[in-house]
């Protein structure tokens, strides 16, 4: 009879990589774009120009660093709060903005709420809303990639709350058993809507949940760009070497509301928010770059200005695009429309042509 206890936290092994300084500067630029996008989209939603929005403020460093440490061929399985990753993959702002507007330029054909995008050519899988489901997808894709001998990893993104989901359990267990080349990137932003981290689960850290599945779990300061980069690079190297999966818990904070439908003042204190605002990852990286003299105050202002203009252009372009074609409603349910869908489509076409139609 033996009682298992978590081991005391350990200092990590030496980093496998350090990002070059020029890279860090580009990453900083990207974090600024994410921040500007975020502010702008919150405004667009308030103005009723887009229907909904999920901000990522506080999580920019974690996401961009993670994206930075990955290879373009790696597959991303995001949740709905992953604009930092999207930008790090090189997904153009225009594509994101069109998705937010659900217009005719939206590659998802206006099928989903804002933030639930995905772009196959960027190996960025289309997100859904039910939390956690992407986790086991990433495991399956990793197993498939290994079967095909593709030297890539898959990465799933999810929050602290999502560690309670069925797919967290199933996905991590399968990954352990099959030693899938995958990384579980958990952004612990301390809240799942109104539920604080400590009421989500009683484990001391989320990372230690990996023990239950027989592979390493690491905690990393998610406000620290370089620390996240190292953790991801190391996990990626392990996976590629055939040494299996890693769970990374990036400790961050959701500085904004859960979404534009949420009012965080109902459940958390201003003091807590203020405390975490001190750790703003964008400000922190700026400070580091300034300290190392890689960035001047003028450069920084130029970076912000450029970001604002880029975002403004994307909004303007998106607003000019026409609405999505109504008859696309019936596409992509199946590879080809069934006879019933053809009929329903004709019915709608008739209705739109003037005559009111019965549905199906």
């Amino acid at each position, binding site marked *: 009879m033996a009682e298992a206890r978590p081991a005391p936290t350990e200092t990590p092994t030496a980093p496998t990589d350090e990002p070059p300084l020029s890279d860090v500067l580009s990453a900083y630029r990207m974090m600024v774009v994410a921040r500007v996008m975020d502010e702008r989209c919150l405004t667009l939603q308030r103005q009723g120009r887009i*229907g*909904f929005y999920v901000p990522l403020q506080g999580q920019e460093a974690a996401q961009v660093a993670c994206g930075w440490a990955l290879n373009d061929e790696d597959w991303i399985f995001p949740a709905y709060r992953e604009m930092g990753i999207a930008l790090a993959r090189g997904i153009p702002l225009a594509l994101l903005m069109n998705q937010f507007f*659900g*217009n005719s330029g*939206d590659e998802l*054909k*206006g*099928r*989903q*709420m804002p933030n*639930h995008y995905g772009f196959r050519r960027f190996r960025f899988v289309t997100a*859904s*809303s*039910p*939390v956690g489901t992407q986790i086991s997808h990433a495991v399956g894709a990793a197993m498939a990639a290994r079967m095909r001998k593709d030297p890539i990893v898959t990465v799933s993104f999810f929050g602290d*709350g*999502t560690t*309670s*989901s*069925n797919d967290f359990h199933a996905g991590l267990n399968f990954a352990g058993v099959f030693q899938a080349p995958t990384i579980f990137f958990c952004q612990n932003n301390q809240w*799942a*809507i*109104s*539920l604080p981290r400590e*009421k*989500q*689960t009683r484990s001391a850290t989320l990372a230690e949940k990996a023990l239950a599945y027989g592979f390493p779990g690491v905690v990393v300061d998610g406000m620290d760009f370089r620390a996240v980069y190292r953790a991801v690079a190391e996990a990626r190297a392990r996976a590629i070497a055939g040494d299996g999966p890693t769970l990374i818990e990036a400790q961050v904070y959701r500085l904004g509301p859960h979404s534009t*439908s*949420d009012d965080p003042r*109902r*459940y958390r204190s201003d003091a807590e928010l203020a405390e975490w605002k001190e750790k703003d990852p964008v400000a922190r990286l700026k400070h580091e770059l300034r300290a190392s003299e890689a960035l001047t105050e003028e450069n920084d202002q130029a970076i912000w200005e450029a970001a604002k203009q880029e975002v403004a252009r994307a909004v303007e372009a998106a607003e000019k695009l026409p*609405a*999505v074609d*109504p008859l*696309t*409603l*019936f596409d992509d*349910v199946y590879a080809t429309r*069934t006879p*019933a*869908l053809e009929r*329903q489509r004709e019915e*709608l076409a008739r*209705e*739109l042509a003037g*005559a*009111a*139609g*019965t*549905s*199906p």
Partner: protein
Amino acid sequence: MTELTLVQAVNRGLQQAMHDDGDVILLGEDIGLNGGVFRATDGLQKEFGAERVIDTPLSETGIVGTAIGMALYGLKPVPEIQFQDFIYPAFDQIVSELAKFRYRSGGQYPCHVVIRAPYGGGVKGGLYHSQSAEAYFAHTAGLKVVIPSTPADAKGLLLSSIHDEDPVLFFEPKRIYRAVSGEVPEGDYRVPLGEARIAREGSDLSVFAYGAMVHPALQAAESLAESGPSVEVVDLRTLAPLDEKTVLASVEKTGRAVIVHEAPRFCGYGAELGSLFAEKALFSLKAPVVRVTGFDTPFPYALEHLYLPNAPRILHAIRETMAAG
């Protein structure tokens, strides 16, 4: 009587039940301090304490599973699923356990849980905040399925559900949470389960609807009040067990049926009604039955307004049916 919105009526129903019966407890995601994402449980944790209004971890499996355990022990849990679209992780617990506990134990273990969930479209929620999943549950023997369409019914049916002995899936039309308001009786007001409501009497054609769809059905019927045929609107209220008597009486009287729901048509709840008419009222039918429903696609986002049935479509179906025989 007080004038309340539908979501307020739900809130008052819960409050009443908790006040009258210490065994009633609530559990779910964000229902405590936050009062639920739609505020259906607003103020209840403050009033009844965190032991009776429990904020749970993010697991519908766990919410329904623990609620079942509580019910077996004798409590009356009323779990909330934040959106009906997120009920699927609990599907095994609902279909394999909740629905079958009484039966499989030979009656030893009744298992009375009332699962509340907002359902349906009209809030620009896209695929995962808009679904109408009632048919899955109506097809599951052992479950009752209840959907109110007015504030008074929301309170009255909810209280009846909580005081029932069987598991109830109580689906709330979120689209009209605030869009519809009306007089709601005070106190322990109950509307019996298993009884449909004639929302409007008529003699030429019957429209069958439930939840948010009752309102466009009434609109369509009213728009014909002067000139057109006389349209009866039947609000089902309890989908399972169905009030066959009221439903058949209506169609036998009018000889014409239009069925309305938001869910996709194929194998949707409306199929049961149409089939019932073909079985038990065939010789009363003067015209083919018509279903006005969501399309056989997942629920869209940008084109939601084209997906959902509305008064013009119902009107069109009424006219077609009148013309057909």
